[in-house]
């Protein structure tokens, strides 16, 4: 079998020679100016951070139900989420910036998830995976709560359960979103500034503007 050798293009050879001259310090004046302009890429810090952050999401190791089986598959060899840089599942919410709600959320689990979410550092994102988590699916009864009621969900992945490809597609959509809004916290993204939790003593809890459930008061729950 004949081996084909591509001829090195002429301008590539010129660039090599220019680079050698630059390292020697022989390049100056107009030549140096042009050399620099050809090699420097300008961007904004936001875009650079967005590009980096969108390509290195750290999901939280967190599974709720059967959807978690499909979630596990995106890490395994066939889907291999490492191709996009999302393979480092973190066991601590303080090191993660993405929570995938993979399964049904019971009303007893919802406060737990909310606490985990509050422990995650900004900026952080949430994916609601599967029918149960988004719309309660087949468990549409007293026991469950849809995730939109207690978390700001960025991406809903439909399915029962969604295939790993679908979840992968959802994560890639989330990557697009992150690259556009990399440094915004969720309150900025969803126009919720001013809804921060207050400690006792920081505010008058009886004022009408603050909606706080007192212990034992389950009205509206």
């Amino acid at each position, binding site marked *: 079998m004949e081996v084909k050798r591509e001829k090195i293009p002429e301008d590539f050879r010129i660039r090599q020679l220019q680079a050698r001259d630059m390292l020697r310090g022989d390049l100056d004046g107009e030549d140096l100016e042009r050399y620099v302009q050809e090699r420097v890429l300008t961007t904004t810090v936001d875009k650079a951070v967005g590009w980096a952050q969108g390509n290195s999401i750290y999901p939280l190791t967190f599974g709720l139900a059967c959807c978690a089986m499909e979630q596990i598959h995106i890490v395994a060899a066939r889907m291999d989420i490492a191709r996009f840089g999302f393979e480092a599942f973190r066991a601590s919410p303080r090191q993660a910036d993405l929570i995938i709600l993979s399964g049904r959320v019971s009303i*007893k689990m919802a406060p737990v998830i909310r606490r985990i979410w509050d422990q995650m550092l900004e900026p952080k994102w949430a994916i609601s995976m599967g029918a149960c988590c988004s*719309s309660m699916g087949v468990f*549409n009864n*007293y026991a469950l709560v849809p995730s*939109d009621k207690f978390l700001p969900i960025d991406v809903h992945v439909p399915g029962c359960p969604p295939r790993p490809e679908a979840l992968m597609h959802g994560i890639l959509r989330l990557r697009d979103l992150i690259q556009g809004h990399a440094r915004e916290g969720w309150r900025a993204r969803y126009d919720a500034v001013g809804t921060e939790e207050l400690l006792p003593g920081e505010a008058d809890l009886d004022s009408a503007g603050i909606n706080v459930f007192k212990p034992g008061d389950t009205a509206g*729950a």
Partner: protein
Amino acid sequence: MPDATELELTAQELRDAHNESILDTSFHRDRATLIANPQLIREVLGHLQGKGYNMLASLHGVDYYPEEPRLGVLYEMLDMKRVDRISVKARVSIDDPHIPSVVDLFPTADFPEREVYDMFGVVFDGHPDLRRILMPEDYEGYPQRRDFPVGGEPVLFTFNEEQSYGKYV
């Protein structure tokens, strides 16, 4: 399973030992059931335990709406040596859903009794720690009762899609 004759004999034996303890019997599809007086359920189960039915395989609640008395508590007893089963059923009304706890006779009844309390609101008198087990502790109502609203989110179809609260306005 005991056959119909043996069921009647067991019922008569229990009636002799504890007056008014067995209200009725039922033998349906080879399943022997003693319908017991809820106030004497401890005596009935204790007697069966002495007879060899010493494992409480299951304890669960039923809502017989609209029949009265509405609530039922079922005890599935198992004789491990003879591999023989018998059911004991106690009916309690919804206005006064009290029944003595059997946790001291069968320690395994602890969680099932809490679950029946959680889902049907049957109060087991004498239970060491009668709290809700599945639902949050501040939950109101007993969700498995037949008159409890199913709840949940309205399912959106094309004809009612305007009700969607998630739509952008």
